[in-house]
């Protein structure tokens, strides 16, 4: 039998929304309510996710290059805009291909695209170029500073969008940020993001190479992809699409599973 004093205390904490700071008092995620989920409109993934990504939570799409992260994100945003919701995409390093978004079915009128500065990986240092590495004005350092600034602005933009509210999907693209710079992001950033969307209809999605936020209420989709080709001869060969393996990771093991989906090229 539950101690009444503990029950009263937990109730008071829940009323002040402080219960989520206590790991043992975390309320069960009510995934039975369809309105609390944002489906991707990909039947196999939605089935694996028991309906979709949770709203009011921070979820992640993580995986290496060509693993299908952007494809799934655009699919997610297309599904949201088809439902009439509005979506925001914080494009940290300006990587969105508008034609791909349109081909995925995203209603571009309902997409807020926040473009960061286009920075592509700095030059690899030469093995015998010690002087250049130490030079304060080296291109590597300049690129690093610009990238830091772009990252900082993207996080501020994400915060502004989340504070404004009203968006069905808010995604931030950190897929091209080097791990060293991602580690410099204060660890309080992601709990604050989680706190900003708590209880709202917004599903926040993080696009990364490695799982980063590991939110307690959100889901992490670890992706791995392999391109598929058509044509037997060299001349007839063409890129067909990709087979994307999705592994759903839930911090509390409430939802787990693997699914493989096939994507196709638009041309």
């Amino acid at each position, binding site marked *: 039998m539950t101690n009444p004093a503990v029950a009263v205390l937990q109730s008071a904490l829940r009323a002040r929304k402080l219960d989520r700071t206590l790991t043992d008092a975390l309320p069960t995620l009510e995934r039975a309510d369809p309105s609390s989920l944002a489906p991707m409109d990909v039947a196999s993934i939605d089935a694996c996710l028991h309906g979709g990504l949770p709203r009011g939570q921070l979820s992640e799409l993580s995986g290496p290059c*060509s693993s299908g992260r952007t*494809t799934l994100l655009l699919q997610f945003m*297309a599904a949201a805009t088809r439902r*009439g919701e509005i979506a925001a995409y914080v494009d940290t390093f300006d990587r969105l*291909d508008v034609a791909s*978004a349109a081909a995925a079915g995203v209603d571009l009128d309902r997409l807020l695209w926040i473009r960061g500065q286009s920075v592509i990986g700095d030059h690899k240092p030469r093995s015998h170029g010690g002087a250049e590495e130490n030079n304060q004005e080296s291109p590597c350092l300049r690129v690093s500073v610009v990238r830091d600034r772009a990252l900082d*602005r993207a996080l501020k933009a994400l915060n502004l969008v989340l504070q404004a509210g009203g968006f069905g999907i808010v995604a931030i693209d950190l897929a091209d940020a080097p791990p060293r710079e991602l580690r410099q992001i204060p660890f309080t950033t992601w709990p604050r993001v989680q706190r900003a969307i708590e209880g709202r209809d917004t599903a926040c999605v993080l696009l990364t190479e490695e799982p980063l936020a590991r939110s307690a209420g959100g889901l992490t989709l670890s992706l791995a992809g392999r391109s598929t080709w058509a044509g037997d001869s060299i001349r007839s060969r063409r890129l067909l699409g*990709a087979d994307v393996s999705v592994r759903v990771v839930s911090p509390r093991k409430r939802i787990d599973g693997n699914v493989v989906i096939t994507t196709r090229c638009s041309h």
Partner: protein
Amino acid sequence: MFGALHGPEGTPPGVLADVAREFSPRIEIDTPRDVLLDLSGLTRLFGDARTIAEHMRRTAADRGVRVRVAIAGTRTAARLLVRHRAGLTVVEPGTEAATLAALPIALLTAIHPDAVNSQLPPLDHARGGLSDSRRPTPNSQDGRPPRRHRGTEKNVRDPIEQLSTLRRWGLRTLGDLAALPSDEVASRLGHDGTEWQRLARGEDPRPLVPAVPEERFEQSLELEWPIEEIEPLSFVLGRLMEPLSAHLEQRDRGAAVLHVRLDLVKTAGVARDVFERSLQLPFPIRDARTLRTLALLDLESHPPPAAIDRVTVAVDPTPARIVQWSLLSRALPSPEHISTLMARLQALMGETRCGSPVVVDSWQPGVFAMKPFAPSDTSLSHDGRQPQRHREHRGKNISVPSVPLWLTAVPSSPMPVVALRRFRHPVPVRVQAEHGRPSSLMSMRRGLSGGRVESCAGPWRTSGGWWEPEPWDRDEWDVALTGGVTYRLLRERNTNRWLLEGVFD
């Protein structure tokens, strides 16, 4: 009691209206040279009718206009008299018909609505008509809609023809026409005949329609001490926006354009002493906090070059939005929220870096356009595709910013489409080719892996824009490396350079 002012030819527009407004708020602008005003109740302020007339004449003379003034019990009598007599004319109430009796009948063409609106030449002065200098001008110059024509061009000619008929009957003065039996006139000339007769008797055909002065939505504040920072300006703007917002709400208007004018303290290095900014708002807004925030964010991005000693805020008004909410719909953010968010994002990221993407009708790879983010207040139809929730109603924009919640079962796409992560500036790479096809790839950039090409498809040749400064002419390849990364690779044909355009992800 009504007064009429008649100015000479060449009277600047608006002068007579300004003179009239100094005496009465109820004025009617007949033409730029003819203004009528309701003088009821003014005798307590200025004295008798003659004193009022002298005041008006003196006020007009102070503005450099020598006017005729007539005061009578009806507007029609005042208009007829001011057309006929120079100087001051005052008619005691009840004696209008007797005073008008001696006036020539051709004067009616100067005040009859249909005759005024017709473009026909008036009767000549020698035959008792008006000269060209007295020809009435169309009524549309005062900003009001022109009066209604009652028929075709033939009908428009009728008043002149009817007046000619009256003259053929031997009628020369207004008194002659007023003395005729009304039923006989009506039986011969119809309704128009009785209208002519009522005018001849000095009776008003309709009540006075006051002209509404053009409202200015503007607030200004002179500062005791100059402001040098943007932050203190927030309080000043807040103080100015509150009454402005209340004024807009009172008139059911919203701001389409927000103008901020800052008078600057003169400094040695600054030639301009006025700093002006105009914000084009995507939606009619009248919320004081939103307007203040937008103005502040804009000034933070474009700070004034010197200290400020006077702040003026003005808006261009537009009909306000009518928003209808529904319990069965998902609410979208209000335009005020979106405008504020966009202003904040543009201040953070840059003005051109936030908005909605637009696909451009071009074969050039990677080309796109941006437009302001303004999700239409539309919804989806029941097939989940066609938005249709926007309509105009009585000149007002009515929107339903909502999405029905029952539209959850939308058709899902059968298979996701592979997306390209595009490098906005293609990245140079070293490529080894065998038999014209890339066999290995090496990048000098961190984060872009190289390696042996496992599979490749291409080339697909595209070219275009030869008439522009930067044409494109290239071969495209899709290449998969042994590490699993798939790139879009291109070779510029004119420079033979290999570049990475993006990565399939």
